[in-house]
């Protein structure tokens, strides 16, 4: 019990974290997560493609079996097309970003229900660094927190309560700070004066002032604007990114780091 208190106190005072333990646990467990993720994917594929189909064959007549078969094939084609569209969008974004990017796959979520982090399958070996920005074709996703292991990295999503990004209202160039909200569907935009012009539907983009997220990436759309009780407006922003089912993301990495491994992504 005392050990826990000491451990917490060390981190609060130095804000440095317990690197060795955290690194070891994360390094070992990210491999377990990778394996579990792969196994679950394989089982799901097997179930969808064979076991589920077999049970349908056993239960239905010949015609219904054919229809099911076709429907299943159609679903597969749709899923493939959707995936291809997603990859095309990623490719398009990579051209737009103008920085070295690395595509990554989300392999795990947070270990507790209280924080919003995910684990991606790219790490220090691929050039990912602490504070590397993570984006998707829809908008800003988050940033890499903690020191990445060789093959995995922890990403704090922008919806986490302690996450924030410098932001601009695209139309009027009014600056503020976008912070994680109560749930996956709302950001708060803080420090925008009651005198500034902000309207529902305005697009919010990154300002680049935080030194993490490059300027101009879409964060979301203004959903609620109210005159605040003090100096600042109450603004809610609806994220463009669907955080509940993130699969593929892009990591923005320093040129030197990525040059030695993937030369601008895969």
């Amino acid at each position, binding site marked *: 019990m005392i050990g826990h208190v000491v451990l917490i106190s060390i981190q609060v005072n130095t804000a440095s974290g317990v690197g060795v333990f955290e690194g070891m646990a994360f390094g070992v467990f990210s491999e377990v997560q990778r394996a579990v993720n792969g196994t679950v994917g394989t089982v799901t594929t097997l179930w969808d493609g064979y076991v589920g189909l077999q049970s349908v064959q056993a239960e239905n007549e010949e015609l219904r079996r054919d229809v099911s078969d076709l429907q299943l094939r159609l679903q597969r084609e749709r899923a493939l097309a959707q995936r291809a569209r997603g990859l095309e969008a990623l490719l398009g974004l990579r051209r737009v970003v103008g920085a070295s990017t690395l595509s990554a796959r989300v392999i795990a*979520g947070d270990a507790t229900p209280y924080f919003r982090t995910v684990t991606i399958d790219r790490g220090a070996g691929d050039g990912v660094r602490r504070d590397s920005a993570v984006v998707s074709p829809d908008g800003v996703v988050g940033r890499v927190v903690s020191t990445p292991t060789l093959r995995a990295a922890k990403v704090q999503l922008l919806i986490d309560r302690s996450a924030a990004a410098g932001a601009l209202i695209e139309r009027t160039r009014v600056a503020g700070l976008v912070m994680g909200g109560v749930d996956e569907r709302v950001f708060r935009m803080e420090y925008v004066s009651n005198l500034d012009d902000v309207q529902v539907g305005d697009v919010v983009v990154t300002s680049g002032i935080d030194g993490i997220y490059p300027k101009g990436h879409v964060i979301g759309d203004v959903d609620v604007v109210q005159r605040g009780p003090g100096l600042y407006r109450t603004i809610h922003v609806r994220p463009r990114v669907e955080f509940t089912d993130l699969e593929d993301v892009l990591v923005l990495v320093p040129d030197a780091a990525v040059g030695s491994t993937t030369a601008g992504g895969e």
Partner: protein
Amino acid sequence: MRTAWIGLGLGVALALQTTLARMVAGTGAPVDLVLVVVIVVAIATGPLSGLWAGTVGGLLQDALSGGVIGVGGLSKTVVGYLVGQFGAQFMVTRPAHQVPVFFVGSLIHAAFFVGIYLLLFEGDTVVTTYHDLLIQAATNTVIGGVASIGLQVAPGPSERRRLRRRWPSR
């Protein structure tokens, strides 16, 4: 042997929490499988095992999540010990009796976890509401109840099989 089973249980719970729970319920799934295992262990084996399971499970969970290392460890240590003590004082062997233990244990854990963050840091740093906490406690209770029933039912058939192998004529 018991320690190995507890370790395996915690490892499986962590793996499922980070992968399967996210696939089923999305980011921030309202369930804490590690806490469920800690409570199951505490009920089944007493306060000391509950305390250690809480410490190890909580610290590992902290290391994998985005929070301060030790907060989850401390919260789960307290819950493991309290539930173990409760289990030693009262009869909570039936799943029906364990249901309130899971629910109250989850609420105590949430109170400690969120409370420590509120004490240490200015403003809210964890993503939660009272509504979320109640849903999480309810989900933990359901999963814990199912696990308890499974653990009570599972030894029966395997024991019968073992006896049948030993005395085939019976």
